[in-house]
């Protein structure tokens, strides 16, 4: 058995899977169910000042489905907790007492005034919660009131509030970042400068999931009108991975602990976030799609993989892929690959041919000796990977690196040495 125990900023949990601050962590009854199911911890649904906010009575969620209605993307316009603060605090305190081994982090969102933060922090501290997460991410509703992503989009505000919190509580401070920004490194640096103990990301992405073409209104609608929501679920994972990696490899924030969020659905997703530098992950949409029992697959899958790979503790593999994330300009331009089609696996759909023919480099045949046959023409293949991407059969088309001889496309000999754009003769700024 691999050791799945997690220690994030001194906050211990039996596994690195926390439920993200969201509807699943809104109330005691849900969180008890989550803990019973085996979740390592929760970030409690964001608390604000009394009087509590109100939610719409129309639909809060929208979705993007695959053809068989598998949920690919998810969208919400729910606001922060709409229950009185004292009820939330009482439940948090009770839960932490009853489940001392689970992580209990409380998400907070109050106006950008130090007094407001000073008021709420001691109340949270009193519950015995393990830490706080500053919600600088929600892009809908609250942002119109100067909170949520309206703060996260201004690095100076991020730094300021982080500093206030660090000055007014002993609890670890996690800053949750919004992806609705040009360069994620700026708010991350600001959080770091403000003294935050960690960042968590990503919050949801501004989105309209679809348009009702009969009603001519966004889906879902509230009495005929719709507003943008926050997008999450499997669809946002690639964006989240990139942002996590950007922060992890930024010299200004290197070593700043990261809690990875964004479409984590399976153990593999979690392992990928961790490989790119997240110490733990937070999950919401997957739980809201399948229920809490997915934690069994998450822990079992992560354990099996870690055992197979010889990782004894979670920390052993955190950040393992970061050294291999680099800038384009450092990619090896001498590395030459050609697509290879395994004729035994090929099912003859011809999609590799037509996409290459129509949209790429005319490098795959359609016939050979008058018969349907798909084969790569090395003299045309640039190794772009489009055919691999569209092939319906896994591993039928692979990319093979040329290690010797001549690249038939360029006529140039394969050079085993490394050379990148920074020294390339075509680069006007090339270093001598």
């Amino acid at each position: 058995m691999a050791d799945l125990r997690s220690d994030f900023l001194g906050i211990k949990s039996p596994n690195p899977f926390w439920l993200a601050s969201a509807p699943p962590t809104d109330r005691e009854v849900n969180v008890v169910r989550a803990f019973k199911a085996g979740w390592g911890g929760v970030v409690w649904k964001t608390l604000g000042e009394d009087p509590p906010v109100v939610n719409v009575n129309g639909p809060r969620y929208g979705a993007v489905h695959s053809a068989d209605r598998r949920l690919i993307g998810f969208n919400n316009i729910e606001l922060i907790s709409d229950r009185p603060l004292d009820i939330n605090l009482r439940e948090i305190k009770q839960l932490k007492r009853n489940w001392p081994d689970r992580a209990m982090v409380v998400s907070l969102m109050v106006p950008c005034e130090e007094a407001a933060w000073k008021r709420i922090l001691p109340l949270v501290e009193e519950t015995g919660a393990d830490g706080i997460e500053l919600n600088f991410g929600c892009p809908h509703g609250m942002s119109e009131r100067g909170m949520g992503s309206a703060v996260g989009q201004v690095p100076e505000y991020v730094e300021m509030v982080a500093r206030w919190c660090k000055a007014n509580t002993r609890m670890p401070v996690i800053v949750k970042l919004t992806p609705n920004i040009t360069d994620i490194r700026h708010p991350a640096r600001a959080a770091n400068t403000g003294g935050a103990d960690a960042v968590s990301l990503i919050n949801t992405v501004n989105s309209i999931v679809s348009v009702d073409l009969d009603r001519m209104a966004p889906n879902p609608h509230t009495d005929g009108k719709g507003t943008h929501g926050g997008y999450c679920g499997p669809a946002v994972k690639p964006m989240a991975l990139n942002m996590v990696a950007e922060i992890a490899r930024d010299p200004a924030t290197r070593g700043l602990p990261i809690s990875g969020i964004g479409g984590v659905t399976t153990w593999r997703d979690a392992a990928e976030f961790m490989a790119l530098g997240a110490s733990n992950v937070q999950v919401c949409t997957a739980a809201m799609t399948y229920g809490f029992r997915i934690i069994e697959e998450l822990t079992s899958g992560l354990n099996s993989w870690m055992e197979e790979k010889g990782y004894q503790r979670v920390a052993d593999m955190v950040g393992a892929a970061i050294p291999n994330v680099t800038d384009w300009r450092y990619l090896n331009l001498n590395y030459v690959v050609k697509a290879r089609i395994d004729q035994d696996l090929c099912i003859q759909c011809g999609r590799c041919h037509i996409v290459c023919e129509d949209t790429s480099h005319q490098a795959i045949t359609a016939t050979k000796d008058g018969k349907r046959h798909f084969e790569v023409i090395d003299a045309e293949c640039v190794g772009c990977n489009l055919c691999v991407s569209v092939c319906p059969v896994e591993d039928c088309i692979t990319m093979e690196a040329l290690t010797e001889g001549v690249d038939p496309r360029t006529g140039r000999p394969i050079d085993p040495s490394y050379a990148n754009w920074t020294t390339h003769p075509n680069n006007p700024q090339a270093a001598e």
Partner: protein
Amino acid sequence: MADGSGGGAAGGNAGGMAAGIATGRLGEADYRRNFGDITPPLTRHEALVEADRCYFCYDAPCLQACPTSIDIPLFIRQIATENVSGAARTILSQNIFGGMCARDCPTETLCEQACVRNLAEDKPVEIGRLQRFATDHLLARGEQPFEREAASGKRVAVVGGGPAGLACAHRLALHGHAVTVFEAREKLGGLNEYGIAAYKVAGGAAQREVDFVLSIGGIETRCNMALGRDITLAELRRDHDAVFLGMGLAGVNALEQEGEELPGVIDAVDYIAKLRQAQDLSSLPVGRRVVVIGGGMTAIDIAVQSKRLGAEDVTVVYRRGKDAMKASEYEQELAQINGVKIKHWGLPHRILAEGQRVTGVEFRYGRIGAGGRLEAGEESFTLEADVVFKAIGQSFVPAALGEALEALELSGGRLAVDEERRTSLAGVWAGGDCVADGQDLTVAAVADGKRAADSIHAFLTKA
């Protein structure tokens, strides 16, 4: 997708397992179930999921395998994007009988056999069911997606109101020609109306489709008009600018055995036609023990339908081995799921009877003798039977062509035609089962009718 509910469930009914030949062997609910849709229509969700399985192949093998060249990847993509009317238009523009072909095409040997999914996972995209989903949608709306061109002033006679004739008529009408269809039977539709197994075309699908085809306009129909009896080819040629012959096969092959004339020895195609036209299935006489002689689709159809009408034992006996059977693998399995027994290498030797009552059939075991010819062996077996169905093929009856026959070339006993479905007689085209080298399939008949119509149109409009 056989539901396997055929046969059985006879208990408690008056006819039940009555000996000999009896009517009303089943209850009303049994008939409804046994002769309802054998393959249920896809629901919207099922169609979307199934459509998503299509890879939208380049130069798709399924399209190549379709005798009518329906753009299958395109229509499936249209279903996937919920453009179902568009999907139906794609289908019907190539095959106006797309609805019927979706039901009775042996897709397992055509488009679905070619599907690349077979290589990936042995489970092709259910093209036939998707095609039905799209065409049902359009026909239910009562839309005629095509518009006739301006009247050309040309007149074309079509003999035979089956799939070949009506497909030809529709396409000619589309081009603005005035078409008259002469049908020997009471109703149009040909084998779709009189021949296809009832559970494949439940709910009046055949007539609904005929109405749809005719709704293009410009097609006059004259039923109960048989060539050689009520009209002659010479008259048709005289009164029209072109003639299309699509009269199918009127003859039934004979066993040439003693006892063939007994009332219990029945032509399968005749019985199926009666079954298809029956208002009340319980009125059909059904043997308790049924023997079917033959190995093609008709043999399977009559066997399964007999079982579903309440026959206790139904055995199909084919003179050669399994591989030589014309019935597809799917059809053979369908028969077996329905409790039909299939025996091979049985050559009918003698019909057994007591007076006028059939009691069984004696078969000789067949074998391939010297020179590769099928011959009867010494050993024999006997099957008890109340009814013996002959399903050993149909034949073209050239006599209907009258004097014109002299100028019409035949091949293998059927009309010889060229690539464009022209006969050897000027101004006369032919297609469907009555022409040589036909596949005896609805879809092939439609392809013939379409091809002939294009050729006729070119002929009528040439400068």
